[in-house]
């Protein structure tokens, strides 16, 4: 059970309070209808899934309730940092 720093609570909390929410910075297109099928596919399904540094989302669901972003190494599972939703990719 990993420990996660919630940038809103500014506190380190156990994984059980959190829900993983997939890759970060995949913004919903402003006008989906204008997208080609391939572009829409990319938004819906294509994921970086890197070995190493991963920008990802978590939700402090059993805490402050907020979604936020994190950089975590997928090989060591260690967090590099967490930051609030809406902040630029780090």
């Amino acid at each position, binding site marked *: *059970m*990993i420990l996660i720093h919630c940038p809103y609570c500014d506190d380190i909390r156990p*994984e*059980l309070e959190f*829900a*993983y929410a*997939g*890759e970060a910075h995949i913004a919903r297109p402003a006008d989906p209808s204008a997208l080609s*099928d*391939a572009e*829409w*596919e*990319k938004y*819906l*399904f*294509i*994921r*970086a*899934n*890197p*070995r190493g540094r*991963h920008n*990802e989302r978590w939700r402090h669901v059993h805490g402050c309730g907020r979604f936020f972003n994190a950089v*975590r190494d*997928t*090989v*060591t*599972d260690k967090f590099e940092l967490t930051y609030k939703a809406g902040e630029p990719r780090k």
Partner: protein
Amino acid sequence: MTRFSAFSLFAKALGGHQSWPELWPDAQPKAEYDAIIVGAGGHGLGAAYYLAKKYGITNVAVIEKGWLGGGNTGRNTTIVRSNYLYDESAHLYDHAVKLWDGLSQELNFNVMYSKRGVMMLAHNVHDVQSFQRHIHANRLNGVDNEWLTPEEAKEYCPPLDLNPNARYPIMGAALQRRGGTARHDSVAWGYARAAAALGVDIIQNCAVTGIRRGADGAIEGVETERGFIKSKKVGVSAAGNTSVIMQMAGLEFPLESYPLQALVSEPVKPVFPCVVMSNTVHAYISQSDKGELVIGAGTDQYVSYSQRGALHIVEHTVAAICEIFPMFRRMRMLRNWGGIVDVTPDRSPILGKTPVKGLYVNCGWGTGGFKATPGAGDLLAYTMAKDEPHWINAPYNLDRFRNGRLIDEAAAAAVAH
């Protein structure tokens, strides 16, 4: 290849087992192959074997970054079944189950395929509806799967607890009698040995580090830890690591890799005759021929390549097993490990061509590809040999994520494995 038999075992025993040949030689990479398979799991080794055996392409290398069979093939709970709902899935998995039957003889290597039956427990009305749907679809597809009353289920699997006051009482079960288990490691070894005997080079401890494409975009070969190896056909069968390799070819994939854990108990005398799965309680169990209870459940929640997971997943898995089988509460966990499974958005595999000429892929089997091993190998071989998919794997293309023709077994039934 020395033929294995009780007689050869007897003869070699008298000679103190001194003259057994290597099951597969340790090959050194050649400069060029007609086809390269990346990943020496069951699927990749199977593909190499069928390329040589069925399609006459013997100048083949299987390139493995670690030791062959050390990926998910060597760490799965070995459940084999084909009672999937959709036609596409039933065809795919049943193709494999048909190959499982007779595989030991075909490979001259006992993979211990054991048709002991896979039973899925229904704990609520929704389960019953969903299982009936499967059973009917399976029957009309020629795949065996039958409905059992709770009493019939208990007769087939005596350790079942029919207590009506259980948190999730057993309302019946679906049984696929042809389903069962096979010995994970033996499958890899059997294919490796048979492929090597047909001339396939198995190159271990040699990670693929790059994929070289020519000016026309087509595949030219792979970069490895031991240098460049040329080939116009490269099949990637690297399970959890597929995204990483595809990125080497400049392709982005609809995949995420998650840890999936499993555990075994200490070995005990035969107590558990079949495989039992419960999606509602969320766990599955069988007993290996060696006597351990082999137990698994769902993935950990976050993307990871670390091959280990969290304790709370184990707590929930074991609690679920003890809920259905209260007599196992005093059994003890002997070992717990993790693998990395590659999951697609519709939980079905991707098996076929890629946008890059000469690059083929077999991935996305997620938590349930062991059962498909012979089939996936055969179909990847077919696709590589003919440069077009077999009709069975044609639906498992990449296009479906664009056009919406998903094969979503999980959505249909919330069933995994």
